[in-house]
């Protein structure tokens, strides 16, 4: 005897493959259904892929599904390895309705990797020519161990999103010379912190290091530093939003620096050390930034 449930329904509910005795009220059309996506590709259309990456050796895969004029749903894969920096490639599907795109990285990545991918439609046959884009389908970031695509996650322009936190080991300058770090092409940085070490020689001199920031030409920030470093010492310098007035009890000096300073390509962060001596040695700077792709000049 049935207990619980609706009349004519077994107590445990209908099994997935069993025909329900109560018919659904909604009917579905199984034939002559228009495509779910409106994106129609004509014979002359190419799928354009434009990338900005921050490392080479990124094997990216673009998987796609499309509906042919014959009513078949097909799928395919386009694998590409963009060069570091800006790169462009394309492929063609012929006449079809594009149903979906999925983009992911195929090989193992490293800490801080990202690729900003733009997918659009072009009729430019030779990519060596200026590429004319007729439509933007989707753009966004591909990180290690994640996938993205269309339709799905809303498009992200290059400056959108949280960015990628990176710690960068810079260049150890030649002995007796200053540090100079340059923001690379197609990057936007928000500088979080900078850590430096200066080891002075036995030459008697009062060294007073400062940090400067310029746009490749004009200097627009110089950190004041009233504290001198004597001979035969090793001192650490770390950026801070608080000006240090007196010498530290330990060997770390705070250098005033703007909070979350945004820099773009060709901008430079440098040291400027009064009375730097020939035998003095700056270590490689270690700095943390939040990084985005950028198309700014």
């Amino acid at each position: 005897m049935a207990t619980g449930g609706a009349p004519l329904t077994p107590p445990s509910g209908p099994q997935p493959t069993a025909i329900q005795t109560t018919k659904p009220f909604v009917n579905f059309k199984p034939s002559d259904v228009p495509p779910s996506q409106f994106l129609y590709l004509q014979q002359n259309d190419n799928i354009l892929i434009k990338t900005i990456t921050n490392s080479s050796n990124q094997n990216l895969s673009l998987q796609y599904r499309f509906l042919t004029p014959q009513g078949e749903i097909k799928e395919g894969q386009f694998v590409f390895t963009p060069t570091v920096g800006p790169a462009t490639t394309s492929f063609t599907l012929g006449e079809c309705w594009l149903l979906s795109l999925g983009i992911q990285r195929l090989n193992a990545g490293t800490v801080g990797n990202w690729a900003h991918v733009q997918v659009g439609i072009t009729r430019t046959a030779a990519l060596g020519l200026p590429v004319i884009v007729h439509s933007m389908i989707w753009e966004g970031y591909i990180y290690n161990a994640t996938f993205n695509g269309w339709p799905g996650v809303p498009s992200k322009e290059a400056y959108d999103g949280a960015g990628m936190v990176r710690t960068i080991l810079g260049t150890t300058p030649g002995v007796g010379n200053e540090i100079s770090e340059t923001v690379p092409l197609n990057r936007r940085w928000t500088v979080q912190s900078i850590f430096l070490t200066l080891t002075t020689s036995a030459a008697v001199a009062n060294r007073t290091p400062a940090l400067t920031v310029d746009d490749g030409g004009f200097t627009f920030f110089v950190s004041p530093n009233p504290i001198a470093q004597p001979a035969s010492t090793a001192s650490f310098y770390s950026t801070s939003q608080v000006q240090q007035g007196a010498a530290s009890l330990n060997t770390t000096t705070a250098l005033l620096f703007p909070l979350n300073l945004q820099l773009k390509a060709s901008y430079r962060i440098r040291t400027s050390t009064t009375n730097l001596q020939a035998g003095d040695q700056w270590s490689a700077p270690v700095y943390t930034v939040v990084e985005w792709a950028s198309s700014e000049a």
Partner: protein
Amino acid sequence: MAKFLKCNSCGGIYPDTRDGKAVAYFHACPDQLIETHAVCDASGKAITPATFKPTPNPRNENLMPHPDKPGEYVMISEGSGVTEIA
């Protein structure tokens, strides 16, 4: 693949990221080097300030559009090249 590279133009040493196993690092020489360092007295104060000279044949690994091949990118300047350091 070497672990570090030494720039033959400015003497700077930086990580070798050419194999793609790390995020790319683009070295750019400073635009000037110290030609003569400051001379200081016994108290550490400068008697003669430092003088500077333009970096000879500077290297800049950042990319620019290829002048002859639209869509491609090349290093801005090779400079005096690099020396691999283990």
